[in-house]
């Protein structure tokens, strides 16, 4: 499990008798055990929270889902508490010990390697915890999802049902509701000219609050396409990096030529990503704002201004 003592055994010429070896061994073992236990607890918390949060998110009648957000905030707080505990333990029991030994003993050669290995192994294990934390955290965040098409369909159905059923408070003549309103509106009676106030329902009022999310969901395919393209630049860059390093000591001209060709190919892909990313982002924004305008046409001019602002910020 630990590279520490294997290394010592493998090298017969090395005599490591440092008094701190036992301490780093013990701390590493305890750190690994601690992480095993805390990861189990983190998973238990996640497994218990997800169905409860999902139930709460889907079944509350309250428009802004405040109960859900309060509970999620509490779960996030417990997750953060776990993360901080691990951070503190790593800082205190691993890094502090590492620096203390380095400072007090100034180890060299093989002993220094063992000490560095201790730090690296613990750091790697810590990184595994962080990856698991992200998986849990993402799963918890995913409970904050609503298919806004359903909410919007309810508003459409409601509108179809009420649009011809609003009557003048003065003379009783029918007043047609010409479109979906999401705020109060004064409507004049064509028969007696009395001003009537139409008050939209709670779910209709929510349209302006979820319109952007709904538009985003409708443009999700292009958003994903843009994001994937954006990630390619860094991906190809990191692929190229070790190849470039390998050239430093490569003497074989044939291998060198092959590696250079691979680098050139990756660089071409990277440049392609740099070129495509702003175009794909624009494509996504056009679709999102077009959908957004369809949902709340009264704000079309305002949304066009916002779209143009966003487009102007994209450098090609």
């Amino acid at each position: 499990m630990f590279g520490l003592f294997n290394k010592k055994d493998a090298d017969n010429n090395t005599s490591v008798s440092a008094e701190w070896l036992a301490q780093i061994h013990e701390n590493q073992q305890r750190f690994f055990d601690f992480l095993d236990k805390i990861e189990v607890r983190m998973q238990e918390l996640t497994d218990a929270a997800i169905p409860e949060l999902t139930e709460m998110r889907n079944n509350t009648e309250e428009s802004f889902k405040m109960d859900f957000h309060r509970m999620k905030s509490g779960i996030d707080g417990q997750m953060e508490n776990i993360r901080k505990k691990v951070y503190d333990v790593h800082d205190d029991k691993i890094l502090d010990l590492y620096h203390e030994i380095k400072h007090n003993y100034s180890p060299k050669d093989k002993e220094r390697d063992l000490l560095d290995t201790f730090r690296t192994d613990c750091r790697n294990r810590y990184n595994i915890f962080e990856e698991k934390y992200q998986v849990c955290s993402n799963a918890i965040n995913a409970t904050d999802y609503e298919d806004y098409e359903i909410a919007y369909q309810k508003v459409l159905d409601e509108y179809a049902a009420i649009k011809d059923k609003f009557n003048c408070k003065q003379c009783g003549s029918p007043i047609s509701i010409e479109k979906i309103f999401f705020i109060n509106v004064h409507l004049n009676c064509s028969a007696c000219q009395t001003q009537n106030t139409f008050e939209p329902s709670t779910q209709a009022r929510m349209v302006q609050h979820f319109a952007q999310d709904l538009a985003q969901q409708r443009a999700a395919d292009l958003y994903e396409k843009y994001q994937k393209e954006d990630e390619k630049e860094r991906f190809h860059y990191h692929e190229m990096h070790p190849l470039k390093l390998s050239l430093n000591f490569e003497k074989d001209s044939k291998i060198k030529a092959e590696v250079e060709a691979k680098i050139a190919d990756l660089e071409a892909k990277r440049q392609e990503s740099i070129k495509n990313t702003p175009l794909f982002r624009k494509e996504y924004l056009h679709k999102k704002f077009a959908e957004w305008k369809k949902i709340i046409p009264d704000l079309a001019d305002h949304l066009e201004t916002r779209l143009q602002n966003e487009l102007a910020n994209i450098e090609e």
Partner: protein
Amino acid sequence: MFKKLFGSNTGKEEVNQNAQNQNLNSDETNDFDSEYEETEYDPETLHGTHYDVDDFEEEVERLAQAWIEQEDITSQSEINNVFFNYRRDVYMAWNQCDSDQYIRFDQRNSMAHHGIASMGNTVEDESNPLLAPVHGIALRDYAAICAKLGSGVAEDEIYKAFGIDATIWGELNTIWPARMAEDTTFSVSVLFGQYFGEADQHPKLQGIKTNLSEEGEANLERLKNDPYFYYELTGARQAAYEYGMDGAQWILDNFGIGLGDFQSVAMKYMELQNQNFDSNVVLHYHEYQDEKQAEYAEKFAAEQGGNVADDVEF
């Protein structure tokens, strides 16, 4: 009332001259500051008065353009960065000042330097169409209404004071946020924040009182005057949210202060922090808030039977 916390920026270098700031600084820092005490600054622009602003701009332009040409920089964001860096370098060299003074200068001139408004440093530009009143309701009115509604004042009382009704309010509450979203300079949002912090002084709201208890009134007054109390409650509120509680409601239940009143005070602190930026003061209160947040977190955890991983030990 807030000046006790952040001092006031009168145009002359006053770093650490107020009592609070002096308490927060070491002797070493004070010695360091004394090197700059001869520099005088224009109270409006915070440029040093010993040079011409045009000369300053020319020097920044000269250095930035030379670098842009030499490095063949074409990206607008990179060009902006070059100007930002040279503006900082020239300002600090010409005024022999520390980075806090530079930050105050940069905040004060945020619109000119970055095209972005800065809290506490923004004045209303009457020619800006995004600031034109809507149904006779100016941004200052809208912000005051929001602050009071957020503190639990009855809607009808507010509508009456401003001569509007629920229908007009619906439009206002759509158009003003839409303008904030459109405004790439953030002037509308920043001014909204500044006016939100001044809601109590709005002439049309003088007769309207938030329905505060006697204790709430006393606590609100303390909140305005005692920065430690403000940062303690800010930390407590954050801790409450992390333990699944409604932090704003927790403050109302325990201290009688509504969210609107609390945020109004918060805006004022933020504004003064920007106007009188001092990294030592900022750090001091940041640490104090963290300390208090941790104390309240412990208390809330104990009330809820502990944290889920309390028993997992190294």
